[in-house]
């Protein structure tokens, strides 16, 4: 195997993931079009088809009490427009109360799984980085992690908030900065997203697609400095990361706080934009690490939607199955925002060697965040 010269910013000791117990399935789209959407007749008629095109077969959601049966009886947050034609969905307060209730247990589960895998005592952690763009409260779930895992009371905290789907990569960069600057550090990175709390009852075809994609999930990464002699459970390290703001793309995507939850806008031109900009930028950056696109063996691309994946694959001229892990997580988990790429990495780590691996996410801006993972 060729040697990679780039330095080690952080060793990935373990990745843990967690999802709520119950799922919304493909079959639920019919009830959603009937009872949970206020758009035009025409939009409601095509809604089942748009959900099918999203490729998301199932999505975990913290509000569900079961995975089958009447959607209105399986949860209590959302009400049916059949009985109240003017209903716009729960207000943001109600949604944030649900966030406060459900975020912590999910975050704790993901972290506990990571600690088990890492065979590391939580009291070794010096720095905690949390990530979320789907809910806020303070003291937040970071404090709950300190209480419940438990972590040392002296653990330093950093929260990466509201950055969108690439937030996990911003978190990874922050974590790697800690391990890279302090040889005695041990970092816990935890992203927790409850996107299904932000379901929107109106807004057109784009909104239907967003509603169809978003899901709940949490992930945890335990990272140690290069000098650490703790046996890593993965042979992966963070070697580098980068960001790019695509010019003239401010209008393309937004994530803002509304009266009925957080609202997303997404331009249908985004896939084309990714197609136009991504390859030159990526090639140049890889060249600074003596790598080329052809040498990348693992692609963990955030599955913002099937069209984004298709545009990316075409733009970078990847083989047909290069993004199979992204598609697989999209199909079985949906878009869990900042946690998603770590589900992909966890799956990649289970089979053959996918290193060097590129992790990529897109967010409002349009910004692209990337991380380069190499063998230790």
């Amino acid at each position, binding site marked *: 195997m060729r040697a990679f010269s780039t330095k080690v910013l952080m060793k990935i000791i373990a990745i843990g993931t967690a999802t709520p117990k119950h799922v919304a399935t*493909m*079959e639920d789209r*019919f009830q959603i*079009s*009937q009872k949970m959407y206020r758009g035009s*007749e025409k939009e*409601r*008629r*095509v*809604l*089942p*088809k748009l959900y*099918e095109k999203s490729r998301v*077969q199932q999505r975990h959601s913290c509000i569900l009490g079961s995975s089958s049966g009447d959607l209105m009886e399986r949860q209590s947050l959302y009400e049916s427009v059949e009985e109240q034609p003017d209903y716009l969905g729960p207000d943001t307060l109600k949604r944030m109360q649900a966030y406060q209730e459900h975020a912590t247990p999910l975050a704790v589960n993901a972290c506990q799984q990571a600690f088990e895998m890492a065979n590391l005592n939580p009291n070794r952690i010096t720095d905690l980085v949390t990530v979320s763009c789907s809910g806020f409260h303070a003291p937040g779930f970071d404090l709950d992690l300190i209480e419940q895992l438990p972590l040392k009371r002296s653990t330093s905290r950093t929260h990466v908030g509201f950055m969108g789907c690439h937030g996990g990569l911003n978190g990874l960069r922050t974590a790697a900065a800690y391990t890279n600057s302090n040889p005695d550090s041990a970092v816990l990175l935890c992203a927790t997203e409850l996107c299904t709390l932000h379901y929107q009852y109106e807004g057109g075809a784009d909104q239907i697609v967003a509603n169809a994609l978003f899901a709940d999930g949490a992930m945890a990464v335990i990272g140690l400095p290069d000098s650490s002699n703790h046996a890593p459970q993965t042979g992966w390290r963070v070697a580098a990361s980068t960001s790019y703001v695509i010019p003239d793309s401010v209008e393309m995507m937004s994530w803002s706080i509304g009266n009925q939850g957080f609202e997303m806008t997404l331009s249908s031109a985004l896939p084309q934009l990714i197609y136009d900009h991504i390859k030159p930028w990526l090639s140049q950056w890889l060249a600074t690490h003596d790598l080329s696109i052809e040498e990348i063996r693992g692609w963990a691309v955030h599955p913002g939607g099937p069209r984004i994946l298709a545009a990316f694959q075409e733009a970078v001229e990847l083989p047909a199955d290069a993004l199979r892990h992204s598609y697989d997580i999209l199909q079985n988990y949906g878009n869990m925002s900042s946690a998603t790429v770590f589900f992909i990495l966890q799956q990649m780590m289970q089979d053959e060697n996918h290193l060097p691996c590129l992790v990529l996410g897109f967010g409002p801006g349009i910004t692209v965040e990337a991380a380069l993972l190499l063998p230790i």
Partner: protein
Amino acid sequence: MNQSITDISLTKAATQLWDVVVIGAGPAGAASAFLLAQEGFKVLIVEKKTFPRAKVCGCCLSGRAVRQLEHLGLSEVLTRAIPLKSFVLKSASQSVRLPTAGGVVLSRAELDYNLLQRAVSAGADLIQGSTAILGQVNDHSRTITLQSPAETILLEAKLILCCSGLGEIPNNSGEEIPVDVEKNSKIGVAAIVDSGNWIESQTIEMIVDRAGYVGLVQLEDGKLNLAAALNRAIIKQAGGVTQVISGMLERTGFGTKLSAFAPQWQGTLPITRQLRCPAFPRTFVLGDAAGYVEPFTGEGMAWAFESAELVQSLAGQAIHNWKPQFVQDWNFHHQKLVRRRQLTCKIIKRMLDTPWLIRPAINLLSIAPQISRPFVRSIHG
């Protein structure tokens, strides 16, 4: 009985995952929809025409068809039906009258409307005036394209019953649907004319000669229903259907001129045809859509109602847990139920197709009417 039936909106149709979509609201479709809706399945019937609509074939129901309707709990659809007492078989100067029991005559406009109305009251939903086209099979359902005059929408169903009658099954799925059409198959024609008083009521008159055969029966409203299966070459020779049938009527001594009534003939495709397999993934085909052998005086109806009962017995599993095996299962059971009976009709049809056999056969029947019993039972018992 004539309560109105209303369609559901396209939005309602598109925003459900249907347990069953029934394509075609004829007897096979309506009876199946009735039985499945009664069991609580979510059933949508899609019908190309708007009911009530006139239809000229199949206004006779055999005793077997009547008993089957009773068995399915649908006997009230026959409230206005007229019992049939005899069957008169004629060829040139010969004629034989055979008594029959149990069969009835009822116009298709009335019968089909009544059946559909029962299906809707049992809970089935309905969209009329729209064409349904079979689409792709997905993991848990099959897509159907619904072309309404206003818009094309996509529907999804766990099971599709194709009851679209004689003719091509509208299909956009990419799967092939092989059909066997018999060579030299006759074509079917039928018409309803205003005055029926030139034949006895409660009687089927059937005239057979080298051109084919024509059946006449008086409907419940006094009109005359004519239905014929005719040799295509002879129609060409004679210069039209009215000419052929007028000739057949005149040769057997009918005094009334058929052309005076200017009958509006409805034709069918060559009528002896059969799907090689009447089932595809998540789709069962029944009624005339599955296969058709020039049936006589009410047999087609009995097949339709019996296949509806067969659907009822297999639908539960097919809806909840579709397995590829169900294609063979349906083919097997359908074969057992329908095709053996179609064979009887095929044998009789062969005889009718063989003009030199007709005369001795009618002679034999008039000398010894008791031997007609199996014959009459097989076609009308």
